[in-house]
């Protein structure tokens, strides 16, 4: 997988390049056939340089959108891959015992691997190694300890890049051969965590050698080679063999492929295939890096969906922009084109001429678009990278040539296609009207019966050319569309297909097409009836009656059709589910089409009826006294030129809509992922004694106050938690039964509510303080986090659905469980030693030890919510899974777990005393420290570790581990925020271009108004009002529709397939800024050319060509 998009830009580059080349050849061929049209078309390009610049700039924006999206995609892919492989260093494959056992095997098998891959040119290095996980390292000199460290010894013969280590400070190369048996090397992270330096004395502890320790000296801190960021120490092979009491044995063979560490993953399949045949049955080769990359990219799939959605909307904006610019360009030159038609140029010639001119703009725009897109991509990545640098993984701007070819070709082809469409649309003109710049007269439209008669008459042999004989058939076919017959048939066929395939998109399109057909049929039927009636009863005024009826029916049809489409596509995606009909499938295309239909439906409904809708505004403005004539004219033009107004309104709405949707999605992902301080719940440092218990918060505070007063003074809050393995039953719940749930005895600041915000209180409690008072003083009163509540109760409380409790949270501390250094995963991996029980709850204890069963059997409290923020005081019975006694507790508060980091049923030690009697403390004491503002958390973490060295106090800066866990999501969330900025920037430019073009093409009209007595300021006010009108209506539409689409997206948990806990966040301030900026950009862009136009003498303006 080379893209986070739902398509790969690289894969479409080749066909797109071929298609572009073919189109270019076609244009060249046409140019050789009609060189005069080429000359006329190209002559317009240099005639007005400013106008050309504006047109090219506008067209360029479409390519800019695509190019920047693809550039960002490439960079994201590289970053995600880098993160995925960061902990694997240069390891591409590894050979281990089948089943994952780390038991040593003969080093001779390392030689077998070498022999098997000797002839493989893609292998850069092979290193048999001995590893020992979960080692506890204590630095006596720095007075720090760290658990969960991996000890590693490598046979470096032929290891190649796997042992290409360098000093983490100086970057100087370091060879393993210089390492002595009493020395160790630390990887960069271990050195930082231990604050270790060369020469420090290190002790190694492990449950493999209880009661004793091994002493080493630090030889340095290294990076590179096979080392990642996970805490690792390097020993010599004899030293680790001695520690592990093995001889001539290894337990893993690492393999590095050729390439730069990422590019080699493509060779993994071949290498693992070779090894599969060569290795003995008990060993297996795994392509760890390829698996890691694939897994990581899958995890980021949510962002791929968002990027794809953004790109599709960006395309749509680009195309609409091109269409509008070209329509305005042609409208400006309508008289000129009329003359061309008058002197004998055919309609096809006009189209070809405009196409040549457009092609010239197109090539320039595509090249500039690529450059500006890359520039914007660089800008976004540049803005994001300093923040991301904190994560410690490399980030660089990465562009794949295929992506840029795709952007160029897509930009060129779509621009050309849109120009063709616009040119064809413009070329439909009556020469006389065009010459006098008058509106097109209504076309004579014969009924379908007349058309059918003419079509059949054309079958009779005559001397007419074939083209002319086919024309009546074409008109007949066209009439079946305009009368709604074809749309109705197509709609029914689509619905049948959709029901068969359960395709949500097809179904919705089918409904829409059917609705279009029905409205058109109704319109045609009514008009036909009126025509009959008018001819029969009032033959003298029939034509006038029909004109009026057609105009009104068009308005009504537009209102019904557009309004209906907008309303239908605004419905929630799961609307069908409320009637028990299975949910139709749909993905990004459904969302995109929904967005487009909502916008275009609204514009179709509004644009033809704008004059009616503006009547109140018009009345208000005309009360303005001296400027009455100005406001009248300002409102007249948009209402008169409905098509152009509609396109402008659609563009404005779509730009605002896209910005609103992206802003909401970015705010939601940011809130859910980029919220490290919130995830840490206000605490800065977590610590746990690895040697011996400290004895609770009070003992720790007293010790610190006496031995490390400066450190104690730096603390704002100190809390402690001791996990309790708990069985829980809610007797009041329907079908009550025993379940499991994380639980902890809490003390210190936790019992004041610090870091445990309440989302609900039991009935009768007027404040959170009262709840915490009772938790502290009434043994048996507890709080529980929101994940323990059933979906119905969460909804009743007005809470979102938190991520369900996982195995890493169960048996872990309440805050930050599952994070490196805080997890009880080791305990879970060895359930027999951690939850050793006979009888009693033993079988339920096993549930807690099995990650899959934990999710199935965790507590889901039901029917406790009474309303938003209120629960019924709820009785639970609990029992320690290791014991055989139970105790009654009362839930009086629900802790908000919106950031999915606070889990557990939490109470005082006194609450759990009855069930803990006679049992050893389970797991460990965990301490949480909140430090005063301005104090450095890393320094205080080291100070705490040093002060409590005798207890083996391991400290972890919470923000560091949260950032490393959430790194990719944080990064991409911030890129999304950057994308919103990009959309705003390019959207502003697009609106500015259309705003200014709308004025430029009306220079002649300005001259006319000036000649009639309008002052320059009047002209400016007129354009300002006009722009403001389009801007306000467009921004309002975009805002409303964007919010509806976002609501629908998040209501069905659109991203649930990839992640949970993503809730809609509406950033109102940003949305106001977006709408305000959009309106201001459009209005200002109109004012400048209006001001310029107003400076020109009326006579000159009227003569404008």
């Amino acid at each position, binding site marked *: 997988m080379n893209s986070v998009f739902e398509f790969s830009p690289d894969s479409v580059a080749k066909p797109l390049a071929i298609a572009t080349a073919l189109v270019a050849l076609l244009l060249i061929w046409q140019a050789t056939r009609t060189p005069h049209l080429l000359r006329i078309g190209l002559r317009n390009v240099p005639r007005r340089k400013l106008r050309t610049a504006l047109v090219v700039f506008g067209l360029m924006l479409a390519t800019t959108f695509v190019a920047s999206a693809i550039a960002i995609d490439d960079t994201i892919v590289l970053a995600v891959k880098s993160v995925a492989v960061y902990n694997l260093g240069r390891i591409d494959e590894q050979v281990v015992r089948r089943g994952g056992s780390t038991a040593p095997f003969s080093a001779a098998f390392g030689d077998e691997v070498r022999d098997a891959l000797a002839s493989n040119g893609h292998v850069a290095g092979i290193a048999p190694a001995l590893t020992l996980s979960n080692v506890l390292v204590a630095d006596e000199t720095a007075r720090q300890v760290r658990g969960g460290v991996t000890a590693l010894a490598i046979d470096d013969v032929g290891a190649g890049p796997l042992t290409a280590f360098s000093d983490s400070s100086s970057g100087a190369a370091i060879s393993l051969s210089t390492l002595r048996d009493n020395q160790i090397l630390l990887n960069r992270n271990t050195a930082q965590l231990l604050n270790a330096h060369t020469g420090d004395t290190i002790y190694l502890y492990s449950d493999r050698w209880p009661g004793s320790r091994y002493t080493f000296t630090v030889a340095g801190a290294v990076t590179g080679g096979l080392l990642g960021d996970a805490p690792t120490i390097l020993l010599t092979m004899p030293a680790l063999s001695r520690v592990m009491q093995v001889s001539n044995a290894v337990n893993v063979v690492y393999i590095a492929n050729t390439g730069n560490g990422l590019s080699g993953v493509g060779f993994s399949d071949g290498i693992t295939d070779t090894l599969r045949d060569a290795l003995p049955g008990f060993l297996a080769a795994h392509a760890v890096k390829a698996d890691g990359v694939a897994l990581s990219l899958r995890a980021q799939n949510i962002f791929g969906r968002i990027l794809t959605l953004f790109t599709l909307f960006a395309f749509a904006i680009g195309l609409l922009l091109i269409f509008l610019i070209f329509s305005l360009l042609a409208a400006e030159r309508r008289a000129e084109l009329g003359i061309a038609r008058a002197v004998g140029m055919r309609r096809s010639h006009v189209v070809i001429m405009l196409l040549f001119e457009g092609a010239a703009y197109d090539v320039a725009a595509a090249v500039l678009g690529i450059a500006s897109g890359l520039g914007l991509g660089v800008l976004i990545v540049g803005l994001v990278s300093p923040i991301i640098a904190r994560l410690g993984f490399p980030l660089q701007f990465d562009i794949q040539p295929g992506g840029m070819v795709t952007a160029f070709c897509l930009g060129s082809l779509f621009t050309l296609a849109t120009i063709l469409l616009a040119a064809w649309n413009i070329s439909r003109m009556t020469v006389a009207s065009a010459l006098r710049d008058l509106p097109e007269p209504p076309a004579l439209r014969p009924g379908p019966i007349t058309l059918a008669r003419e079509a059949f008459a054309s079958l009779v042999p005559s001397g007419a050319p074939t083209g002319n004989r086919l024309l009546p058939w074409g008109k007949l076919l066209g009439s079946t569309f305009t009368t709604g017959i074809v749309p109705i048939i197509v709609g029914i066929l689509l619905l049948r297909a959709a029901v068969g395939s359960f395709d949500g998109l097809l179904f919705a399109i089918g409904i829409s097409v059917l609705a279009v057909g029905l409205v058109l049929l109704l319109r045609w039927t009514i008009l036909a009836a009126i025509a009959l009636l008018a001819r029969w009863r009032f033959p003298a005024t029939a034509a006038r009656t029909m004109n009026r009826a057609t105009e009104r029916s068009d308005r009504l049809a537009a209102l019904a059709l557009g309004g209906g489409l907008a309303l239908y596509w605004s419905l929630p995606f799961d609307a069908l589910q409320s009637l028990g009909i299975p949910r139709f499938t749909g993905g990004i295309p459904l969302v995109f089409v929904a967005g487009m239909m909502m916008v275009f439906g609204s514009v179709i409904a509004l644009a033809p009826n704008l004059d009616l809708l503006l009547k109140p505004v018009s009345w208000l403005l005309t009360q303005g006294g001296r400027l009455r004539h100005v406001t009248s004219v300002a409102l007249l033009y948009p209402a008169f030129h409905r098509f152009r107004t509609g396109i402008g309104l659609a563009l404005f709405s779509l730009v605002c809509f896209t910005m609103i949707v992206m802003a909401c999605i970015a705010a939601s992902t940011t809130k859910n992922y980029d919220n490290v301080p919130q995830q840490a719940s206000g605490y800065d440092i977590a610590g746990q004694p690895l040697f011996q218990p400290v004895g609770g918060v009070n003992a720790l505070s007293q010790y610190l106050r006496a031995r490390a007063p400066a450190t104690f003074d730096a603390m704002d809050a100190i809390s402690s938690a001791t996990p309790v393995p708990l069985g829980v039953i809610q007797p009041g719940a329907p079908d009550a039964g025993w379940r499991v749930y994380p639980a902890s005895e809490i003390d210190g600041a936790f019992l004041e509510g610090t870091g445990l915000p309440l989302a609900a209180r039991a009935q009768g409690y007027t404040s959170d303080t009262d709840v915490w008072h009772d938790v502290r003083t009434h043994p048996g009163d507890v709080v529980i986090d929101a994940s323990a509540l059933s979906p119905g109760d969460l909804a009743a409380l007005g809470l979102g659905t938190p991520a369900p409790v996982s195995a890493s949270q169960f048996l872990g501390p309440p805050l930050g469980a599952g994070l490196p250094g805080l997890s009880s995963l080791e305990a879970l991996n060895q359930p027999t030693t951690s939850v050793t029980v006979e009888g009693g709850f033993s*079988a339920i204890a096993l549930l807690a030890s099995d990650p899959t069963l934990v999710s199935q059997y965790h507590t889901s409290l039901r029917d406790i919510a009474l309303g938003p923020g209120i629960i019924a005081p709820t009785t639970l019975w609990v029992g320690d899974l290791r014991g055989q006694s139970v105790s009654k507790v009362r839930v009086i508060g629900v802790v908000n777990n919106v950031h999915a980091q606070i889990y557990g049923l939490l109470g005082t030690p006194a609450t759990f005393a009855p069930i803990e009697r006679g049992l050893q403390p389970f797991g460990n004491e965990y301490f949480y420290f909140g430090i005063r503002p301005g104090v450095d958390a890393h320094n205080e973490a080291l100070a705490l570790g040093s002060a409590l060295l005798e207890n083996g106090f391991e400290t972890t800066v919470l923000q560091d581990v949260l950032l490393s866990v959430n790194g990719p999501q944080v990064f991409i969330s911030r890129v999304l925020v950057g994308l919103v900025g990009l959309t705003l920037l390019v959207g502003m430019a697009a609106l500015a271009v259309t705003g200014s073009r709308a004025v430029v093409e009306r220079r002649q009209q300005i001259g006319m108004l000036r000649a009639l007595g309008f002052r320059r300021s009047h002209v400016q006010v007129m354009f300002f009002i006009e722009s403001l009108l389009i801007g306000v209506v467009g921004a309002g539409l975009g805002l409303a529709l964007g919010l509806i689409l976002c609501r629908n997206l998040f209501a069905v948990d659109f991203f649930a397939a990839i992640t949970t806990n993503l809730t809609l966040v509406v950033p109102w301030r940003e949305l106001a800024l977006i709408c305000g900026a959009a309106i201001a950009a459009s209005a200002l862009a109109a004012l400048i050319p209006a001001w310029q136009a107003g400076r020109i003498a009326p006579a000159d303006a009227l003569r404008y060509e």
Partner: protein
Amino acid sequence: MSIFTLAAMLVACGPSPRPAATVRQLATSPRDFTYVAIGASDAFGVGADDPADDNWPTALSHLLGSDAHLVNLGIPGETVAEARRTELPVALDAKPSLVTVWLGVNDIVQSVSVKEYETQLEALLRALQQRTHARVFVGNIPDLTLLSFFAGYDQTALQVTISHWNAAIAQAVAATGASLVDLYAGWNELAAHPEYIAGDGLHPSTEGAKRLAEVFFSQIKPLLPTLRAATGAP
């Protein structure tokens, strides 16, 4: 596609109903009668396809009617002595109208003496008798020789053991005024229905749980009006 399907889909496109307003009615109303199941792995659902929903107390509660509120205290592996410590306190607190007790197989497997078993069971039943108003139904030991799990046991000795334990159960039941559900006699169809037993050869399967519930229900059914009258349930 029928016109009805199309019409249904069109209607379905209407706005979805909003969540309920602020005040909620809790599920257990005072008029419900509470049924507590004291038991072991079979009550927990071990052996059923979906242990949480296919266990026999849940099946029995469905037979009892929608006004029956089940509190299933079954814990896998429980002996009677353990149930007294972990299940009885919850049962007493739940103020039940109906209690089923089916414990014994784990005691046999763990070689608890029949005298000790009888003492513990009688204590459990007496606590229920004295501290609740519940009608208590106690299942005895079915014919374990029909279960493949016990195939390795001396079948004759096992039959003797079962008869001794069932005698003890009958004694405890008689002493405390509880009702005996004679699974040994009433569930002798096991041989004809191997599908009643799960793959482990010990626990009831989903089908077995349903049948077990029916056996209990056949004895409880005549007393249902009395149970409902006592709690005010309709």
